[in-house]
Protein backbone atom coordinates (compact mmCIF):
# COMPACT_ATOMS: atom_id res chain seq x y z
CA UNK A 1 0.00 0.00 0.00
CA UNK A 2 1.26 3.49 -0.74
CA UNK A 3 0.09 6.46 1.23
CA UNK A 4 0.53 10.20 1.18
CA UNK A 5 -0.85 12.82 3.52
CA UNK A 6 -0.75 16.56 3.03
CA UNK A 7 -2.38 19.35 5.03
CA UNK A 8 -5.71 18.90 3.32
CA UNK A 9 -5.90 15.41 1.82
CA UNK A 10 -5.11 11.76 2.41
CA UNK A 11 -4.31 9.56 -0.54
CA UNK A 12 -3.88 5.81 -0.55
CA UNK A 13 -3.25 3.29 -3.25
CA UNK A 14 -3.61 -0.44 -2.80
CA UNK A 15 -3.49 -3.41 -5.17
CA UNK A 16 -6.07 -6.07 -4.37
CA UNK A 17 -5.81 -9.61 -5.66
CA UNK A 18 -9.45 -9.71 -6.71
CA UNK A 19 -11.39 -8.98 -9.92
CA UNK A 20 -12.57 -5.43 -10.49
CA UNK A 21 -16.22 -6.52 -10.33
CA UNK A 22 -15.65 -8.02 -6.89
CA UNK A 23 -13.98 -4.87 -5.55
CA UNK A 24 -16.69 -2.69 -7.08
CA UNK A 25 -19.43 -4.64 -5.30
CA UNK A 26 -17.52 -4.42 -2.01
CA UNK A 27 -17.54 -0.62 -2.38
CA UNK A 28 -20.85 0.21 -4.01
CA UNK A 29 -23.25 -2.20 -2.27
CA UNK A 30 -24.16 -0.79 1.10
CA UNK A 31 -24.29 -4.18 2.82
CA UNK A 32 -20.87 -5.21 1.48
CA UNK A 33 -19.30 -1.85 2.25
CA UNK A 34 -20.70 -2.13 5.76
CA UNK A 35 -19.30 -5.65 6.17
CA UNK A 36 -15.67 -4.57 5.87
CA UNK A 37 -16.00 -1.01 7.08
CA UNK A 38 -17.92 -1.98 10.21
CA UNK A 39 -21.24 -0.25 9.54
CA UNK A 40 -24.84 -1.24 8.99
CA UNK A 41 -26.79 0.94 6.55
CA UNK A 42 -30.53 1.53 6.30
CA UNK A 43 -30.69 1.24 2.51
CA UNK A 44 -28.70 1.13 -0.75
CA UNK A 45 -26.14 3.68 -2.00
CA UNK A 46 -27.65 5.96 -4.63
CA UNK A 47 -26.04 8.99 -6.25
CA UNK A 48 -27.35 12.19 -4.70
CA UNK A 49 -28.95 10.44 -1.71
CA UNK A 50 -27.97 10.64 1.93
CA UNK A 51 -27.86 7.35 3.76
CA UNK A 52 -27.61 6.72 7.46
CA UNK A 53 -25.73 3.87 9.10
CA UNK A 54 -24.62 2.60 12.47
CA UNK A 55 -21.11 1.59 13.45
CA UNK A 56 -20.95 -2.13 14.19
CA UNK A 57 -17.39 -2.24 15.56
CA UNK A 58 -17.48 -3.38 19.17
CA UNK A 59 -17.28 -0.43 21.52
CA UNK A 60 -18.53 2.07 18.93
CA UNK A 61 -22.07 0.79 18.42
CA UNK A 62 -23.55 3.99 19.85
CA UNK A 63 -22.23 6.00 16.88
CA UNK A 64 -24.15 6.65 13.70
CA UNK A 65 -22.75 7.84 10.39
CA UNK A 66 -24.24 9.70 7.46
CA UNK A 67 -22.93 9.34 3.92
CA UNK A 68 -24.00 11.81 1.26
CA UNK A 69 -23.41 9.69 -1.84
CA UNK A 70 -22.11 11.80 -4.72
CA UNK A 71 -21.15 9.62 -7.68
CA UNK A 72 -21.74 5.96 -8.50
CA UNK A 73 -20.05 5.14 -11.81
CA UNK A 74 -19.93 1.33 -12.18
CA UNK A 75 -16.46 -0.17 -11.76
CA UNK A 76 -14.87 3.29 -12.05
CA UNK A 77 -15.73 5.67 -9.26
CA UNK A 78 -17.67 5.73 -6.01
CA UNK A 79 -17.66 8.90 -3.95
CA UNK A 80 -19.41 10.34 -0.92
CA UNK A 81 -19.16 13.11 1.63
CA UNK A 82 -19.14 12.58 5.38
CA UNK A 83 -17.99 14.03 8.65
CA UNK A 84 -14.57 12.52 9.21
CA UNK A 85 -13.74 11.05 12.54
CA UNK A 86 -17.13 11.86 14.04
CA UNK A 87 -16.54 9.84 17.18
CA UNK A 88 -18.15 12.03 19.84
CA UNK A 89 -21.77 10.89 20.18
CA UNK A 90 -22.61 14.06 22.17
CA UNK A 91 -21.42 16.39 19.44
CA UNK A 92 -23.66 17.60 16.60
CA UNK A 93 -21.51 17.53 13.48
CA UNK A 94 -24.29 18.44 11.07
CA UNK A 95 -23.31 22.11 10.72
CA UNK A 96 -19.65 21.33 10.04
CA UNK A 97 -18.07 20.95 6.62
CA UNK A 98 -17.76 17.44 5.21
CA UNK A 99 -14.81 15.80 3.53
CA UNK A 100 -15.07 14.11 0.13
CA UNK A 101 -14.06 10.44 -0.14
CA UNK A 102 -13.38 9.07 -3.63
CA UNK A 103 -12.70 5.43 -4.49
CA UNK A 104 -11.30 4.87 -7.99
CA UNK A 105 -10.76 1.48 -9.59
CA UNK A 106 -8.52 0.35 -12.40
CA UNK A 107 -7.44 -3.03 -13.65
CA UNK A 108 -3.88 -4.13 -13.05
CA UNK A 109 -1.86 -7.30 -13.52
CA UNK A 110 -3.30 -9.92 -11.21
CA UNK A 111 -5.98 -7.77 -9.72
CA UNK A 112 -7.44 -4.35 -9.16
CA UNK A 113 -5.80 -1.12 -8.20
CA UNK A 114 -7.82 0.95 -5.80
CA UNK A 115 -7.06 4.55 -5.01
CA UNK A 116 -8.72 6.39 -2.17
CA UNK A 117 -8.59 10.13 -1.74
CA UNK A 118 -10.17 11.92 1.19
CA UNK A 119 -10.02 15.67 0.69
CA UNK A 120 -11.37 18.87 2.18
CA UNK A 121 -9.72 18.69 5.59
CA UNK A 122 -8.62 22.31 5.39
CA UNK A 123 -12.20 23.31 6.20
CA UNK A 124 -12.50 21.14 9.32
CA UNK A 125 -12.47 23.37 12.43
CA UNK A 126 -9.22 23.41 14.40
CA UNK A 127 -10.95 22.52 17.68
CA UNK A 128 -12.29 19.34 16.09
CA UNK A 129 -8.78 18.33 15.14
CA UNK A 130 -7.59 18.96 18.70
CA UNK A 131 -10.51 16.92 20.07
CA UNK A 132 -9.73 13.95 17.84
CA UNK A 133 -6.14 14.17 18.99
CA UNK A 134 -7.15 14.07 22.65
CA UNK A 135 -9.54 11.19 22.18
CA UNK A 136 -6.77 9.06 20.79
CA UNK A 137 -4.14 9.57 23.38
CA UNK A 138 -3.29 5.90 23.36
CA UNK A 139 -0.33 5.75 21.03
CA UNK A 140 -2.37 3.56 18.74
CA UNK A 141 -1.64 5.42 15.52
CA UNK A 142 2.00 5.63 16.45
CA UNK A 143 2.00 1.85 16.51
CA UNK A 144 0.47 1.78 13.05
CA UNK A 145 3.18 4.16 11.89
CA UNK A 146 5.71 1.79 13.38
CA UNK A 147 4.26 -1.11 11.43
CA UNK A 148 4.34 0.97 8.27
CA UNK A 149 7.96 1.87 8.90
CA UNK A 150 8.91 -1.74 9.57
CA UNK A 151 7.29 -2.91 6.41
CA UNK A 152 8.67 -0.03 4.33
CA UNK A 153 12.13 -0.61 5.75
CA UNK A 154 12.30 -4.32 4.96
Amino acid at each position, binding site marked *: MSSSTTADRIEKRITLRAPRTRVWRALSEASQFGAWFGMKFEGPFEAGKTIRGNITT*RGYEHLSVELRVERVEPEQLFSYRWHPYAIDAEHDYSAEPMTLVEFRLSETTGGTELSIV*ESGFERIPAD*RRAEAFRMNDGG*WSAQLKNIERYVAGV
Partner: protein
Amino acid sequence: MSRASNVAARKVASAALVFAALGDETRLALVSRLAADGPRSIAELSAGASVTRQAITKHLRALAVAGLARDTRRGRESIWELTPGRLESARSYLDEVSAHWDLALGRLRAFVEEP
Protein backbone atom coordinates in the same frame (compact mmCIF):
# COMPACT_ATOMS: atom_id res chain seq x y z
CA MET B 1 23.60 -14.92 6.02
CA SER B 2 24.91 -11.35 5.73
CA ARG B 3 24.45 -8.86 8.52
CA ALA B 4 22.04 -6.78 6.41
CA SER B 5 19.79 -9.73 5.63
CA ASN B 6 19.88 -10.68 9.29
CA VAL B 7 18.55 -7.24 10.22
CA ALA B 8 15.90 -7.52 7.49
CA ALA B 9 14.87 -10.96 8.76
CA ARG B 10 14.48 -9.60 12.29
CA LYS B 11 12.35 -6.71 11.00
CA VAL B 12 10.09 -9.12 9.16
CA ALA B 13 9.76 -11.27 12.28
CA SER B 14 8.97 -8.22 14.40
CA ALA B 15 6.39 -6.87 11.94
CA ALA B 16 4.83 -10.32 11.63
CA LEU B 17 4.42 -10.37 15.40
CA VAL B 18 2.54 -7.06 15.39
CA PHE B 19 0.33 -8.15 12.51
CA ALA B 20 -0.40 -11.46 14.20
CA ALA B 21 -1.26 -9.66 17.43
CA LEU B 22 -3.74 -7.40 15.64
CA GLY B 23 -5.16 -10.15 13.46
CA ASP B 24 -7.68 -11.25 16.03
CA GLU B 25 -11.07 -9.70 16.65
CA THR B 26 -10.84 -9.81 20.45
CA ARG B 27 -7.38 -8.28 20.53
CA LEU B 28 -8.31 -5.59 18.01
CA ALA B 29 -11.33 -4.75 20.18
CA LEU B 30 -9.06 -4.56 23.25
CA VAL B 31 -6.69 -2.18 21.43
CA SER B 32 -9.63 0.02 20.37
CA ARG B 33 -10.99 -0.01 23.90
CA LEU B 34 -7.65 0.93 25.48
CA ALA B 35 -7.16 3.64 22.85
CA ALA B 36 -10.57 5.13 23.55
CA ASP B 37 -10.80 4.69 27.33
CA GLY B 38 -7.19 4.74 28.50
CA PRO B 39 -5.67 2.36 31.09
CA ARG B 40 -8.07 -0.32 32.36
CA SER B 41 -7.94 -3.28 34.73
CA ILE B 42 -8.54 -6.81 33.52
CA ALA B 43 -11.81 -6.83 35.46
CA GLU B 44 -12.99 -3.72 33.60
CA LEU B 45 -11.87 -5.09 30.25
CA SER B 46 -13.66 -8.39 30.90
CA ALA B 47 -16.95 -6.79 31.96
CA GLY B 48 -19.51 -7.31 29.21
CA ALA B 49 -17.04 -9.22 27.04
CA SER B 50 -18.21 -12.39 25.36
CA VAL B 51 -15.05 -14.26 26.36
CA THR B 52 -13.72 -15.25 29.78
CA ARG B 53 -11.40 -13.23 31.95
CA GLN B 54 -8.68 -15.84 31.37
CA ALA B 55 -9.05 -15.38 27.62
CA ILE B 56 -8.82 -11.57 27.97
CA THR B 57 -5.63 -12.00 30.04
CA LYS B 58 -4.16 -14.28 27.41
CA HIS B 59 -4.95 -11.79 24.65
CA LEU B 60 -3.44 -8.90 26.64
CA ARG B 61 -0.24 -10.94 27.09
CA ALA B 62 -0.13 -11.48 23.33
CA LEU B 63 -0.42 -7.72 22.80
CA ALA B 64 2.41 -7.22 25.31
CA VAL B 65 4.67 -9.68 23.48
CA ALA B 66 4.11 -7.66 20.29
CA GLY B 67 4.99 -4.47 22.16
CA LEU B 68 1.51 -3.02 21.71
CA ALA B 69 0.40 -3.00 25.35
CA ARG B 70 1.93 -3.15 28.83
CA ASP B 71 0.71 -3.69 32.39
CA THR B 72 1.50 -2.13 35.73
CA ARG B 73 0.44 -3.33 39.18
CA ARG B 74 -2.01 -1.28 41.22
CA GLY B 75 -2.36 -3.08 44.53
CA ARG B 76 -3.53 -6.55 43.62
CA GLU B 77 -4.72 -5.52 40.18
CA SER B 78 -3.00 -5.41 36.81
CA ILE B 79 -3.70 -2.21 34.89
CA TRP B 80 -3.27 -2.45 31.14
CA GLU B 81 -2.51 0.36 28.72
CA LEU B 82 -1.28 0.75 25.17
CA THR B 83 2.44 1.34 24.80
CA PRO B 84 3.08 4.90 23.66
CA GLY B 85 4.99 4.84 20.38
CA ARG B 86 8.18 6.66 19.65
CA LEU B 87 6.51 8.70 16.94
CA GLU B 88 3.79 9.94 19.26
CA SER B 89 4.96 13.54 19.06
CA ALA B 90 4.61 13.45 15.29
CA ARG B 91 0.94 12.52 15.41
CA SER B 92 -1.64 14.79 13.94
CA TYR B 93 -5.31 14.68 13.18
CA LEU B 94 -4.68 13.54 9.62
CA ASP B 95 -2.39 10.77 10.85
CA GLU B 96 -5.31 9.54 12.95
CA VAL B 97 -7.68 9.56 10.02
CA SER B 98 -5.02 7.99 7.83
CA ALA B 99 -4.44 5.23 10.37
CA HIS B 100 -8.17 4.47 10.38
CA TRP B 101 -8.10 4.13 6.61
CA ASP B 102 -5.18 1.72 6.88
CA LEU B 103 -7.22 -0.47 9.22
CA ALA B 104 -10.29 -0.24 7.00
CA LEU B 105 -8.30 -1.11 3.87
CA GLY B 106 -6.77 -4.10 5.62
CA ARG B 107 -10.32 -5.32 6.27
CA LEU B 108 -11.35 -4.59 2.68
CA ARG B 109 -8.40 -6.62 1.41
CA ALA B 110 -9.38 -9.58 3.57
CA PHE B 111 -12.98 -9.17 2.43
CA VAL B 112 -12.40 -9.15 -1.36
CA GLU B 113 -9.45 -11.54 -1.47
CA GLU B 114 -11.11 -14.34 0.48
CA PRO B 115 -11.70 -17.39 -1.72
